[in-house]
């Protein structure tokens, strides 16, 4: 898979209340959730995000609650993938289970600015900064996770078995 997009930078410990505040969890409609994605951190995010853009987080991205509404909101907002230094474990599960591509890279975050364009190539395991032609490696995805993605998420993986 190849993802090309502009980067939205966030810091460490982006929690699921920041991704989608609990006050909006009275629905699971992806479009409604997307309308409030990252609202308390950056009220302009939803208005300015373009389809294909990429979220770049720091350590422990997606910490806090188990709400699958968080990856649902991110995906429905048009984000193609999330890159972070590390992910909180329930968010990590949820992303693979429901089909939001996520990648771990320790170096990228400190090396680029918000708004720069990057290309994530999951097969090659690289992230390239388009303008400067700089390249970074992404941590390899465990084979089971690759299978989940290839099958289209956990439920389709089970159906296949």
């Amino acid at each position, binding site marked *: 898979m190849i993802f090309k997009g502009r980067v939205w930078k966030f810091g460490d410990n982006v929690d699921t*209340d920041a991704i989608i505040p609990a*006050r909006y969890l009275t629905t699971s409609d992806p479009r409604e959730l997307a309308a409030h994605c990252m609202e308390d951190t950056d009220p302009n995010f939803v208005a300015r995000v373009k389809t294909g853009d990429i979220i770049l987080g720091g350590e422990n991205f997606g910490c806090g609650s188990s709400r699958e509404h968080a990856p649902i909101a991110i995906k429905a907002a048009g984000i193609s993938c999330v890159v972070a230094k*590390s992910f909180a474990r329930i968010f990590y599960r949820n992303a693979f289970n429901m089909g939001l591509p996520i990648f771990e890279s320790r170096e990228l975050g400190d090396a680029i600015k918000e708004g720069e364009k990057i290309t994530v190539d999951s097969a090659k395991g690289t992230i390239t900064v388009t303008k400067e032609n700089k390249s970074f490696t992404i941590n390899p995805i465990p084979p089971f996770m690759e299978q989940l993605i290839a099958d289209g998420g956990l439920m389709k993986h089970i159906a296949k078995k």
Partner: protein
Amino acid sequence: MGNTITEKILMAHTGLKKISAGQLINARVDIALGNDVTAPIAINEFQKAGGKKVFDKNKIALVLDHFTPNKDINSAQQCKAVREFALKQKVTHFYEGGQVGIEHALLPEQGIVLPGDLVIGADSHTCTYGALGAFATGVGSTDLAAVMLTGELWFKVPQSIKFVIYGKLQKWVSGKDLILHIIGRIGVDGALYKAMEFTGETIGKLPMADRLSMANMAIEAGAKNGIFAPDAITREYVKKRAKRDYKFYSSDADAVYSDIIEINAGGIEPQVAFPHLPSNVKPISKAGKVKIDQSLIGSCTNGRIEDLRIAAQILKKRKAASNVRLIVVPATPAIYKQALKEGLIEIFMNADAIISPPSCGACLGGHMGILAEGERAITTTNRNFVGRMGHPKSEVYLASPAVAAASAVLGRIASPAEL
């Protein structure tokens, strides 16, 4: 090479004879939990996958506790969808209305989760049941759907961190203070993907309510689960509640840990986590003069009868400061009834407290206790992220019931020792 209690419970739920940290396994689930926020997505996924019948109606718990009593039309719709599913599938452990309690207080109280169980819940605080010596972990809604369909789920066997806690707890210091101290020490990702195993002489004497508070907040250090080896205190708690067999596991002497952390609990004061992370912890003596607008005593962390007794002890013949809204949330109907019987509810009402029905509402900024811009709350809950209890510019401070009660009286963050 021996195994940890976490590894042993996981292994017992597979066909495997050997297991080690880092291994990916498929394991059988004893109890799978969902609530009115997370179950609707799971039910939808279950049906989309062609699911007709759940794998075992006795092994699923559906608890309508988050936006209940129904906050608005949307939340009523979500509850309706879960209710229809639960009734159609004849789910044994379905709770709503006057029977509902906050899920992580309710399931142990009702003997639905037991020692040695493998429990998953589409709620991050499912890790609470580790207090009983169960492996319990929070997962997402799709995970819950998969378990409702197959009775199994994938897990990565976690490494374990062993906490050896010794020393006598000071007055007013509880399990909540211990876990806040630990999170302050290791950080919100200090146990990322790992099991937190709590051991030592202090833990051996720690009442079940305190163990439940500690295991509840393992997730706030990023952990997969928190766990206590079951003992006489566990046996006393479960023997009158269990309606099926259960098993006590313990770690081998030569089990492998990624880290061993020793903590002298005798030196710990009541703790307060300042905004906006549960790891931003200070001892009460260094809290300074922080005025508050609201004090909340309740939640899956600290809404048990033992918590209410401590709060009542402090609030007896006292009143909340005139500028403070004091909200008390008994976590389950049984706790509420017991508090009535013991006269605690009267003490709270005489202290000008608002008594809330069992609900997660205020803790997650859902309803029944929302903060306005610039307001501050001291609360016995487990998270203080930006906007957690209301306006993005409000502030949440986490503490024990003793500190929340004393703070309500004095109108600022305070130790009970100041009264």
